[in-house]
């Protein structure tokens, strides 16, 4: 027992020592705050996706009957992006926004669905989500959520 206790003591001691070393190491290697350049690049990457999604959202090419997502969902409205996943009657289950986008492409637009993790799908999700920035999350509320009000322009910085 004594031996064991000693081993335990040794183990605890070593943990403390190692932890202390890790703390010191991590302090020494703490990441600096992201630079303005880095933030701008990340932001630009997102906005590129949003702009691509905006174009797809307004394109009749996803469907086969002339309709685009924007016919029924101008400015990304009535997509309730922030309430997914949730039960959706037409999906017949708790589904995701991407599944709903594909349902809309397949049924009302009579088009071919997108790969769920395709660049196009992610861009569409990015656009629809960006139009709801700041809108409160209220899942399971049976009402139509409007997107962010837009006074003029595309509604986001686009170059």
């Amino acid at each position, binding site marked *: 027992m004594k031996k064991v206790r000693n081993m335990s003591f040794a183990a605890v001691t070593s943990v403390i020592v190692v932890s202390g070393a890790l703390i010191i190491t991590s302090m020494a290697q703490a990441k600096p705050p992201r630079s303005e350049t880095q933030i701008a690049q990340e932001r630009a990457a997102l906005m590129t996706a949003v702009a691509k999604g905006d174009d797809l959202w307004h394109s009749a090419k996803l469907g086969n*009957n002339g309709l685009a997502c924007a*016919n*029924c969902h101008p400015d990304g409205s009535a997509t309730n992006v922030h309430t997914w996943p949730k039960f959706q*009657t037409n999906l017949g289950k708790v589904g995701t926004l991407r599944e709903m986008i594909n349902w809309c492409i397949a*049924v009302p637009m009579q088009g071919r669905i997108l790969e769920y993790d395709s660049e196009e799908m992610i861009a569409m999700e990015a656009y629809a989500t960006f139009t709801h920035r700041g809108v409160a999350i209220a899942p399971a509320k049976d009402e139509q959520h*409007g997107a962010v009000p837009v*006074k003029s322009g*595309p509604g986001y910085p686009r170059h």
Partner: protein
Amino acid sequence: MKKISRRQFLGMTTKAGAATVFAGIFAPSASSMLGLGGVAEAATKKIKPFTFAVLTDAHLYDIADHKFDHILEKAVSDVNSIKPRPDFVLYAGDLGQSGKKDELIKGKKILDKLKMPYKIIPGEHDYYLDMGQAWRGLFGDEHWSFNHNGVHFIGMNSILVPDFWTLKGLTPKERMGMMEELECHNCGAWGVGEKQLDWLARDVRNVSPDTPVIIMTHSPLWDYYPRWNFQTYDAPQIRETLRKFDKVIAIHGHVHQVVYNEIDNIRSCGLLSTSWPWPYPPVELEYSHIKQRRADPGDFEDGLGGHDIALNADFDAIVHWREFSDLLPDNIKKGLKV
């Protein structure tokens, strides 16, 4: 152009088998201004009760057997089934989607199945491919007025924008493509423009203030949500011109939804489409109890339909949104007194 629309009207009247009843109700406003009958009929406060129907926003595509064709056909059948039969039908614009002549011809063929005459105004989707040329060839004047049973009816083209295409060197198809987007942010705000404002002032100059007036435009005559052109930029001037009347009922398409507003003497009603319902924009509504419920995207007829508007002798109107599904709250299910 007036001759064409009048001939079309009389032709349809004959087809409806009621020429004697309807003859002359769409008397050109010019004769009203000259005091040839129209004014005398309209210058009485009491009116002869009647019902008329309204359809709008079919957004027909140049694609055979498209679902929107069938929805418009259903709405036309529905209007034909209304009893007592509406005296006439008004159509508030966006018969086509991309301004193609074939879309408009297809729409006219369906509308011609109405058992009563109809009058129509253009929407932006009818217009910006050829600046309304095909539309005018099929339907005549973009603005008009007539008197019926003591009510002065006015229709105007409210979707005119300043030229945004010439400097950019856009093709007609590109111009139309931009206008097709509700959120088009380079197209400018819609209005009726100076010429129509002058015409309106002349049209109502000799119409007495106690005359009931109904005005139809594609876009609302109030600032609802300018971003989507749920507005008409020169509506303040229109409202000023119509301010002398005791009561004006304004009906408008474009919004694809039940919506209501009052400004001064004007009571505005938004209309259902026969294509797709639009969500309510992110703004507060003063009459928020006059709305339709959210539509099921899996039901292609949800939130769509036509309208009948019944007027009594005192110009009380019952506006009845004839929604195909059951999306109207109880307070307006049987109509709204306007």
